[in-house]
């Protein structure tokens, strides 16, 4: 495991990103004429062969338009005129209008369509971003969610007038309970980290209910950053557990740290190295042995649907990322949805409102339920959660069924192992060895350490050069314990041809770097902008347009 070293990564990936390349290096990367290399644009008459998108200066909507232009036509004032002072006294009024844009609808359309073209997206190409499960987003889900019966349904509609929505939520809860092997579900949390917060608060409530104040939460050093951040927000203290030589939890370290002051262990399984922890039963035994609860970070659930269930592994609380495993489109950074499923002993503390079904089959949302939620931690947000995401996830589950979900996970694991095998061929393997293990689950982590030493390019450079080949790079510099980490998750919706072309691209970048590392170090070349100065952005933050 020579690839694995102590974390040498800078605290801020922005610092990695800001090796600013001298101007000249940004121009044609090799002697070859522009256009003859993949991803290097053929030159127009502009400087250094700029593409049309590169020639376009970024202009915000606030810099467009002209006074008086507009899109909105306000409905006529159809009620009697009243003295404005009587409607709203002047000391409460806004004196200067907000300086919003003054633009016509065609300008809005052209502006935002123009911006959309400066984005890479899942529908355009391979997106093997580790721990993010970028699987295809079926458009049926968008159509179904847009039906007025779903989309224009007010969240405070009377229960008897939204039975369809409540039934949908109920069915989704039942399905998530079955998939996780835990009987009680709350759909309320807004995203994964919100589900984590719910989980830690639930764990805390469980112990408090038993008259215990437990202060510590164990998280492996491979955990997603949201885990430790959540623990702090919930008023508890993070205790890190080491990773053993095989990539799983270090059992001795866990045993040493598990005591009566531990409220909970938060674990991802398979973990962020893409490995299913072989000691999971033992881990559960140790944690339960000291009276603590076991929390499952569901970010990697896509590896095990229908194959293994967190509830059967001994977990008490699970969160799901509907925007990962269940294809809610990620929207460039949300919306997401992070339902939780819990065991019987945790159920009394579930967030309210709780969805209930009466004898006659009618559904209701209860603020003060008996049974689950009877000693609730309270509310985590307004209303009942991101229903629009529930519609999409439910549509996905209906489309696939139980067998289909298992097929999805099996294929995700097959694809990951195939891509891993392709990347373990000569000459990639020498430069990018697998950090841990032999096989993987739905994702795997390579180390760019040898590449850095032998070729003089870093994981970041490889990632940036892959952009020129039309790929979204894998997750980089995570997990932290792998030197120059590259975390690859292909998902089940990619074809063998796509996986092959990605493996070929990685090999091509390495071959190119062996000849001339400056090419990767100067990349990307073909994107709307080239490498960006993140340090300058943070040093002197400009986070809004200045208006005059």
């Amino acid at each position, binding site marked *: 495991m020579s690839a694995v070293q102590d974390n040498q990564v800078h*605290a*801020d990936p922005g610092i990695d990103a800001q090796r600013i390349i001298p101007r000249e290096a*940004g121009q044609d990367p090799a002697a070859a004429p522009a256009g003859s290399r993949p991803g290097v644009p053929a030159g127009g008459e502009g400087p250094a062969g700029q593409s049309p998108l590169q020639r376009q200066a*970024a202009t915000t909507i606030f810099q467009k338009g002209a006074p008086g232009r507009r899109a909105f036509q*306000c*409905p006529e004032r*159809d009620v009697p005129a009243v003295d404005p002072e009587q409607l*709203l006294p002047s000391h409460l*009024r806004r004196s200067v209008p*907000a300086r919003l*844009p003054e*633009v016509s609808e065609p300008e809005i359309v052209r502006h935002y369509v123009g911006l*959309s073209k*400066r984005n890479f*997206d899942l*529908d355009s190409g391979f997106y093997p*971003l580790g721990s993010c499960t970028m699987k295809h987003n079926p458009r049926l889900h968008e159509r*179904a*969610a847009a039906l*007025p*019966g*779903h*989309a*224009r349904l007010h969240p405070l*509609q009377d229960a008897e007038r939204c039975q*369809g*929505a409540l039934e949908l939520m109920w069915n989704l809860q039942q399905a998530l309970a079955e998939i996780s092997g835990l009987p009680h579900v709350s759909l309320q949390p807004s*995203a994964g*980290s919100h589900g984590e917060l719910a989980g830690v608060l639930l764990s805390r409530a469980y112990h408090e209910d038993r008259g215990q104040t437990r202060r510590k939460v164990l998280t492996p050093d491979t955990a*997603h950053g949201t885990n430790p*951040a959540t623990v702090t*927000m919930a*008023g508890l203290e993070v205790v890190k557990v080491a990773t053993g030589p095989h990539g799983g939890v270090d059992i001795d370290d866990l045993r040493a740290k598990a005591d009566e002051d531990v409220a909970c262990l938060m674990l991802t399984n398979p973990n962020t190295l893409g490995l299913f922890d*072989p000691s999971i039963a033992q881990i559960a035994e140790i944690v339960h042995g000291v009276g603590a609860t076991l929390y499952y970070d569901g970010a990697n659930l896509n590896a095990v649907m229908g*194959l*293994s269930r967190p509830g059967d592994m001994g977990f008490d609380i699970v969160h799901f990322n509907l925007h990962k495993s269940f294809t809610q489109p*990620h*929207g*460039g*950074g*949300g*919306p997401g949805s992070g339902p939780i499923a819990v065991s019987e002993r945790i159920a009394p503390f579930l967030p309210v409102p709780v969805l209930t079904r009466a004898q006659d089959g009618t559904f209701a949302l209860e603020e003060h339920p008996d049974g689950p939620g009877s000693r609730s931690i*309270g509310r985590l947000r*307004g209303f009942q959660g*991101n229903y629009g995401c529930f519609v999409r996830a439910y549509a996905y589950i*209906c489309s696939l*069924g139980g067998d289909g979900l*298992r097929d999805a996970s099996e294929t995700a*694991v*097959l694809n990951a192992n*195939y891509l891993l*095998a392709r990347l373990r061929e000569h000459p990639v393997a020498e430069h990018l060895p697998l950090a841990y293990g032999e096989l993987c*689950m739905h994702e795997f982590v390579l180390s760019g350490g040898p590449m850095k030493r032998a070729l003089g390019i870093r994981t970041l450079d490889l990632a940036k050069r892959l*952009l020129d080949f039309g790929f979204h790079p894998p997750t980089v510099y995570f997990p932290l314990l792998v030197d120059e980490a590259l975390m690859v998750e292909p998902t089940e919706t990619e074809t063998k041809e796509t996986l092959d072309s990605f493996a070929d691209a990685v090999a091509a970048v390495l071959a190119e770097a062996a000849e001339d590392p400056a090419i990767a170090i100067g990349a990307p070349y073909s994107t709307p902008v080239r490498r*960006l100065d993140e340090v*300058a952005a943070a040093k002197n933050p*400009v*986070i*809004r*347009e200045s208006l005059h």
Partner: protein
Amino acid sequence: MLQAIGVSSLQEIFDRQIPEGVRLRRDLALAPGRGEQDVYEHLSQLASRNVSCEQEISFLGAGMYDHYVPAVIDMLTERSEFLTPYTPYQPEISQGGLQVMFEYQTAISELTALPVSNASTYEGPSAVAAAGYLAKLHNQRARFVVSAGLHPHSIQTLRTYAHGYGMEVVEVGLTDGLTDPDAWAAAIDEHTSAAIFAQPNFYGAVEDAAALSAAAKMSPGGEGAQPPVVICQVDPIALGVLAPPGDCGVDVAVGEGQPLGNRLDFGGPSFGMFAAREEFLRRMPGRIAGQTVDADGRRGFVLTLQTREQHIRREKATSNICTAQALNALAGVVYLSWLGRRGLVEMGELLLARTHYARERLAGIDGVAKLHEQPVVREFAVRIDADVAAVRARCLEQGVNPGVDLQAITGRPEDRGGLLVALTERRSRADIDRLAELISAAVAAERPAAVPA
């Protein structure tokens, strides 16, 4: 593929990794998969068992409102390039999304008259709780003072979070529909971490935001003492006509973004606004887009100040938030551009006029009275001298949803008989007149045995 991997079967991959004891030895007990047309049919049938704002004249509000969502928003949010990317971790191929965030931050900053905005949080009430956490990090004090005029969901969410980070929540009651100024000033002391109110408040009343902020800042510890963080939950649509929080001494403005171009969706997804004074920039939760230049000197955008965030700072992060509401925030900034500088004001003036009209119409009904006399922008509360549920049921039968039963949502005994009525630009005078007719008839029918002459 198996050959390349070096295994004889798919099963072998799992056998070598998942311990025997934790494998699922049966099929998931879920219905078999179905074709697209069947799934559509099923979801369509479920939708048909809901009564949406398409099917009744709805005066429901209390945090989410049935504004018209322009078609251009559907078109843009359905574009693959906005719908399907992940969070912009690779800025060179995410300039569109990052610039949208930058524009969104500018729009929210303008709307609130506060210099810094993040790129969105989940939604309204959790944004209030997130603002509370910011205050806790800022001054490490023990208590939140909240106005009873804050949305009940916000108070409840704040309590849930506050219990986690070990703080107390003290509620200040209302007088004449407004946060009681004396009780407010008395409750705030040197242990107050944040003072939190809503504008307009949950009962529709326009608070004197400047006076509440000033009182909060005067109150504690005397001269020179650091005042608590003043947090205000705002309705963004009302800010077309109301003095913005930044001009009223507010430190952090949060709010439910749904009224800005997001559909109701039975409660989400929408987005949470989060704007603040400059001094809180490095404690803000969530993503922030910043301007910079690329290697060739072009203007570009990146996620910035990431040392606040969970993926860098882990347990020392200022928040645990990761995925937020980028697509919903896109709808928000497109909506504000669509309304435009004048449109937002016109919308506000229209709502002021129609809400005033509706309140007077309803208050003119025998057995209905205003809950308070304060100015209202787009929502108001009345007290009905009859069983609210029964009155509502009669209106619902006639195709009009008259609004929210106040007590059902607040649980406060004093809200018995209360009805919260909300307007948007989609509710015309004719709709209001129809509402008044139905309530008048319903109250007459439901009033406890009419007073003998």
